């Protein structure tokens, strides 16, 4: 596919609200064309009006601006329990059932904004989007942290806790021994 074709493919998908995966598009381009394709994609983004956001994106944005964690708000809007999301996540990631508590730990940390996003493996984002029923690029994963509360003043009124949906926080467990596959999925770094 030529650069012109790739640019046009992106423009068409973007304007249609299809949320094209830019990282994937660029990775598929020949190495020598990647900088130019990136420039052309930025040009499209600069020239074209952003398409209307998904309703779920609005829910998460509203949560962040209230000083709450977006994943908790999204899950609440979908009527999903944390257990249901964890179970779905564990199944999609093909993790053995006996490790579901470990997945629950990490999901809790993620949902409450305590897990560094850069360490999360790529396929966890896909599994999470699937479990929550949204497009992957729409996910807002982390709200304002404690250090943002003062700076945002009127914007960040408060920070949500894990019990906003009437659920008790999951006690953080130690994970003695060698890191297992669940540790790797959530903290192993980019893949």
């Amino acid at each position, binding site marked *: 596919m030529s650069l012109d074709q790739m640019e046009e493919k992106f423009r068409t998908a973007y304007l249609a609200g299809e949320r094209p995966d*830019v990282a994937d598009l660029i990775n598929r381009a020949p190495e020598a064309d*990647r900088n130019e394709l*990136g420039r052309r994609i930025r*040009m499209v983004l600069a020239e074209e009006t*952003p398409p209307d956001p998904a309703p779920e994106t609005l829910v998460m944005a509203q949560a*962040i601006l209230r000083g709450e964690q977006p994943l908790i708000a999204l899950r609440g809007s979908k009527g999903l329990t944390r257990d249901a999301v964890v179970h779905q996540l564990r199944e999609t990631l093909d993790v053995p059932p006996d490790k579901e508590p470990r997945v629950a730990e990490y999901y809790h940390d993620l949902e409450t904004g305590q897990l560094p*996003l850069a360490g999360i493996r790529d396929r966890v984002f896909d599994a999470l989007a699937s479990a929550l029923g949204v497009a992957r690029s729409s996910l807002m994963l982390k709200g304002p942290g404690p250090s943002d509360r003062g700076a945002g003043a009127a914007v960040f009124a408060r920070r949500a806790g894990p019990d906003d949906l009437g659920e008790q926080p999951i006690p953080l467990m130690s994970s003695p021994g060698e890191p297992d596959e669940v540790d790797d999925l959530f903290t192993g770094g980019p893949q």
Partner: protein
Amino acid sequence: MSSLYGRTLCCDPWRKERANPTSLSRDESDTRDRDLLARGDLDRLFALYWEPVLAWIHATARVHPGEAEEIRQQVFLRVTREIGSGKEYRLPFGAAIFSITGWTTRGYVEGQAKRGEREAAMGDDDHQDLVDDRSRREIEAIGQDDDVAQIFARLPQREAQLMTLHYLKDMPLSGVAEVMEITANNAHQIHHRAKLRLMRLIAENGA
């Protein structure tokens, strides 16, 4: 009634053209953004730019998905803090947020490169851009008139003059037309071209 550029929104020249919100032009998009900011409807504004910002990050640097999420997070928290503290961007919001995104992305990658955690952003040429202190300073200083004037100075003379009068001198386009001795229609055309060129300049450099 407040406004992003110190002008009221009562004389919106594009109001009539907004009948079809699904096909907004760049002008209409800017007007909508300004309207959302003036109303304090930040959640909708952020939701609109949430995905384009991620696309911009991936189009600027070769980062992994989790890193892109961290960068996107930084962009929106920064913009939220700045707006919350009363900052007004002296650029159309789209231009401002993409500039901030480019700068944040480059800063993130530069930090990693300095620590030896990665070789480059998008090839060796871009790596040189990562330490472009001039562009970083410009983006950091969005909102300061001198720096915005420098950005406008990259435009052709008539466009630069119009943008300076309109955005930095808070003059309505009808007033700008009188000063420049051109018709109001011509002023709108120059304004439209200038905004497009401004966005392209930002896209060209990544920030």
